[in-house]
């Protein structure tokens, strides 16, 4: 049997909800989505009273649970839409489209990988770390945040990662400083062949730059507002340089969210 491919649009259900620091973790059923998931994919969720969707990174999938296959998402309640989502109780039904977007490309050989994430957007790096470890890659994970409340827990990732580094801007936990302050050193120490990054633009740019300086490949998961998430509206422009050297503007949701870091025209983002 071929594996199911392509996104689906389904009604899912909140089966668990948990506040962790500044974030809300939701566990959802979404028939067909966990089965199709690859690290780096996201889901678009409908919000009552809003036309545009909310795009959420998939933090984890479970192939089976008491509720069947489930997926976990992490969100920060920033506007009325994410506040509504964060307030949904167990049993609430939500329209979910996914999995969406191009996932992280995995190396064919067992190489050394540095994974750099910041805030809730670091979420897709956790399932990526598992996939890389299955392939025999040496995984070094860096989780960074403005403060401890915005730090995704790396406890579970310790099984997949050879080393875990924690950075906070205020020094409340781990090393003090930003990804930009430490990333060159981290790339060197991990002897990374590939750098994977997920987080705000500054973090991605720093990681992509450090990879380039060290002669490593980089893959970045861009974090941008996507009105539909499905590629239909062309509303999430991402300036890149194409394989042919020609400047283009692609859709972050459809040609991304994961792109090669050296292809992004960071000055135009």
């Amino acid at each position, binding site marked *: 049997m071929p594996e199911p491919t392509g996104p689906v649009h389904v009604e899912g259900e909140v089966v668990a909800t948990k506040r962790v620091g500044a974030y809300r973790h939701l566990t959802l059923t979404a028939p067909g989505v966990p089965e199709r998931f690859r690290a780096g994919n996201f889901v678009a969720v409908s919000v009552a009273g809003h036309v*545009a*969707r909310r795009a959420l990174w998939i933090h984890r999938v479970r192939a089976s649970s008491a509720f069947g296959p489930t997926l976990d998402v992490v969100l920060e309640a920033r506007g009325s839409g994410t506040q509504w989502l964060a307030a949904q109780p167990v049993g609430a039904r939500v*329209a979910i489209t996914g999995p969406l977007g191009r996932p992280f490309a995995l190396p064919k050989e067992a190489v050394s990988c540095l994974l750099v994430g910041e805030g809730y957007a670091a979420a897709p790096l956790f399932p990526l770390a598992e996939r890389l470890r299955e392939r025999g890659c040496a995984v070094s994970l860096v989780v960074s945040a403005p403060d401890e409340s915005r730090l995704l827990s790396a406890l579970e990732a310790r099984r997949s990662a050879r080393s875990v580094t924690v950075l906070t801007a205020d020094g409340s936990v781990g090393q003090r400083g930003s990804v930009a302050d430490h990333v060159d050193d981290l790339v060197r120490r991990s002897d990374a062949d590939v750098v994977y990054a997920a987080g705000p633009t500054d973090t991605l740019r720093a990681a992509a730059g450090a990879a380039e300086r060290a002669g490593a490949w980089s893959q970045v998961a861009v974090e941008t*507002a996507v*009105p539909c998430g499905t590629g239909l*509206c*062309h*509303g999430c422009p991402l300036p890149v340089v194409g394989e042919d050297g020609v400047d283009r*503007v692609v859709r972050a949701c*459809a040609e991304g969210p994961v792109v090669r870091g050296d292809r992004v025209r960071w000055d135009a983002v």
Partner: protein
Amino acid sequence: MGRGVSAALPGPVMVAAGCGGTGRELEPFCGPDGLAGLDLATRSITLDARAGGPGPRVVEAPGGLVNAVGLPNPGLEHFLATELPWLVRAGARVFVSIAGATMGEYADLARRLSRAPGVAGLEVNVGAPDEVGGGLFEVREPFHAASVIAAVRREFPADRPVLAKLRPDVSRVVESARACHDAGATAVVIGNSVPAAFPDGRAGGLSGPALAPITLRCVGVVRRSVPAVPVIACGGVHDVASARTYLAAGAVAVQVGTALLHDPTTVARLRVALDPSHDLQEDA
């Protein structure tokens, strides 16, 4: 002109221009038959490639979206080589939306598309909100729109439909519909997004359910004033009831746009519910 080509008109449900991606992104949400038999207006195609405007291109407003996407498209050459053949293979009835900076560009687009295999018809974008079309031919006056339609009609076979997509401006829409129909438009699409502004004042167009009452007014007044002009309604269609409201007002078809961004299965559900071979009363 009433050439008796209404059989070639799309309907009762059609994908609105600019809301179906390249077609590939919509296909997974269209059921087992995919795009087969689906009437689809492409995003607007220009002669040369356009990168589109800067972000944010789309922001939410109560009941809709404000957009200034800037007509990103790969240009006619690339469209003919890649996107169109894929859509034709997928079985879609392709209405290519065209936009130009001059009447000559519209005529060129129509001539070259008339020779491209699989083009069911054209939809001429003569209703972009002011300032948003960025360099498009000026179509503020109804006679400008009609001149464009006439230029397109001269280059495009008479047995295939040309749709004129108008602004939903109640004070001018009757005149525009009449002029475009006289110039050879098979039907008019009412309409494009309504001129609006982003919170920072930048020009955009409003789409979505907030438009439905405005569009319905325009559809009604055109049907009453110029009953010979077939009307395709486009504005806030998101479920069976909103589609039937337009059909009851005399529209021959409805286009689904912004609703696809909220629920990409909308057009598939409406196709089933409004299929004239069924007599379903259920709501989607």
